[in-house]
């Protein structure tokens, strides 16, 4: 009886082992697609440049070596010193990326923990939700650029203040999404746990939290990015050098002289943001085991 069921049962689902052949192949294909897209983007860039320079169009903006340098110019700049007789640009930028990355990581962890804590505190009480959610939402509209210098003075802690700013940007999506996730469980599952006379904490631990994981990771992906952005922005008014924010300000000043430096900085900043994001994606693949979605 079980065997007859077996054959009918397994609907050809991909096994859930982390490094099965199917998954590795899929990952390889993804990398291929990304590379193809990047090459296509490069091609489009140069093409756009070529057409606009030839025709002299000025909409949406005039194209020349300052506004839209060649891609290879940007890459070449990595190997040049960032200032006269100084270290190579690439080492400057990598060190800055590490500095900013540290701030972002600490901020991310703090913000994610805070957001999770807020969600767990609010889930059991509609009253508390109505009391505090408006402020949690409103908190996001306060431009942290303005708050940043004050935070730096309060904390007197250099890069940690920037981490706080990153945390500020991080906690919100985590709080909101986790709250939603904690409330997302099937009402029948709640009924089932009532038949076990489960306490609120047991329901939280065994039902709500596991149900919320997909939502949590969805928020963490957004937060990963936000924490990097927060770290960069936090550095701007705080006169903290050594990070990517400082590098941006610095190269912005000299943009008309060496535009490629600023573009190169942006590339590194983009890479940092994407790296954080990918880390969360990998963590999600390993931790969250759910039915694959079937969609059209």
């Amino acid at each position, binding site marked *: 009886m079980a065997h007859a069921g077996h054959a009918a049962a397994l609907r050809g689902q991909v096994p859930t082992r982390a490094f099965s052949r199917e998954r590795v192949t899929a990952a390889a294909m*993804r990398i291929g*697609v*990304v590379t193809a*897209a990047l090459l296509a983007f490069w091609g489009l860039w140069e093409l756009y440049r070529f057409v606009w320079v030839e025709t002299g169009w000025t909409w949406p*903006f005039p194209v020349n070596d*300052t*506004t839209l340098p060649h891609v290879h110019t940007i890459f070449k700049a990595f190997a040049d010193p960032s200032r006269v007789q100084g270290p190579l640009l690439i080492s400057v930028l990598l060190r800055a990326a590490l500095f900013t990355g540290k701030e972002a990581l600490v901020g991310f962890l703090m913000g994610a923990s805070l957001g999770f804590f807020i969600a767990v505190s609010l889930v059991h009480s*509609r*009253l*508390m939700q*109505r*009391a*505090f*959610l*408006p*402020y949690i*939402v*409103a908190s*996001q*509209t*306060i*431009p942290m*650029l*303005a*708050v940043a*210098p*004050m935070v730096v*003075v*309060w904390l007197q802690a250099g890069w940690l203040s920037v981490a706080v700013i990153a945390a500020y940007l991080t906690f919100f*999506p985590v709080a909101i999404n986790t709250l*939603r996730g904690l*409330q*997302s469980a099937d009402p029948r599952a709640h009924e089932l746990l009532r038949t076990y006379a489960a306490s609120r904490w047991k329901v939280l631990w065994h039902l709500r939290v596991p149900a919320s994981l997909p939502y949590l990771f969805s928020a963490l*992906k957004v937060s*990963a*990015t936000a924490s*990097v*952005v927060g770290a*960069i*922005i936090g550095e*701007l*008014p705080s006169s903290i050098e050594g990070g990517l924010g400082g590098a*941006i300000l610095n190269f*912005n000043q000299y*943009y008309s002289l060496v*535009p490629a430096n*600023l573009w190169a*900085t*942006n590339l590194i*900043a*983009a890479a*940092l*943001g*994407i790296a*954080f*994001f*990918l880390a969360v994606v990998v963590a999600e693949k390993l931790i969250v085991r759910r039915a694959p979605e*079937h*969609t*059209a």
Partner: protein
Amino acid sequence: MRARLRDWIPAIVVFAAGIAAWQLSIEIFNIQKFLLPKPWAIVHACWTQRHELSSAGWLTLKEALGGFAIGSALGIAFATVLARFRRLSDALMPIAIAANAIPIIAFSPIFNAWFDPLSLTPRMATAGVLCFFPVMVNTLRGLTSVKPSQVEVMRSYAAGELAIFRRVRVPTALPFVFSALKVATVLAMIGAIVSDYFGTFGSLGITIKNSVALFDFETAWAAILVASILGVGMYVTVSLVERFTLKWDPTRQERGTA
């Protein structure tokens, strides 16, 4: 309607308590006024600086709204086109999601080089690009998360792609779109204000920056207050439109507030 008003009482209580605590703790802990002025001082600054604040606020609002509108519209448009070509969107989706991870704000100085730094354009561009990716990614997810069985029902009526789009994909996508639009209002505001930092123009970001430089923290906080109100206003507007449009969505009933 009565229930709705009653819902806000806890929040109002918290607000009042917060203001009182603020006032008290400044006195008790003797926090230097330049860091955290008394609530009344900020309100006072709002009044005395009302001309500058309102003109700067208006500019910021234009920047944010402009960026929000353009970025969201483009995001929705791209998503709509991509949804039609599933293979392409499946391939590009991870790239779009990764692109969302790029700190757009770093591009603000470049926008200043592209467009007239004295105009609203570079700021709208910053705000717009910030909005574009979340809106596009979420709209695309919404348009493609239709259940296969629903599409099959439509096909059994010999419905073409356009009909399927109108009657099935769009309603399915709407909750996703609205949730992305709410995030976009916040992003647009942030983009508008932060992009000010790289410029020399008279909107709220500059007001804040200049006030801080002059140690006039009351005005700085007043400007922050104005920015927050504008941001909340945009968010609430989108929320109201959402509530009106999405009366049928069951997952919304679980949450306490919009």
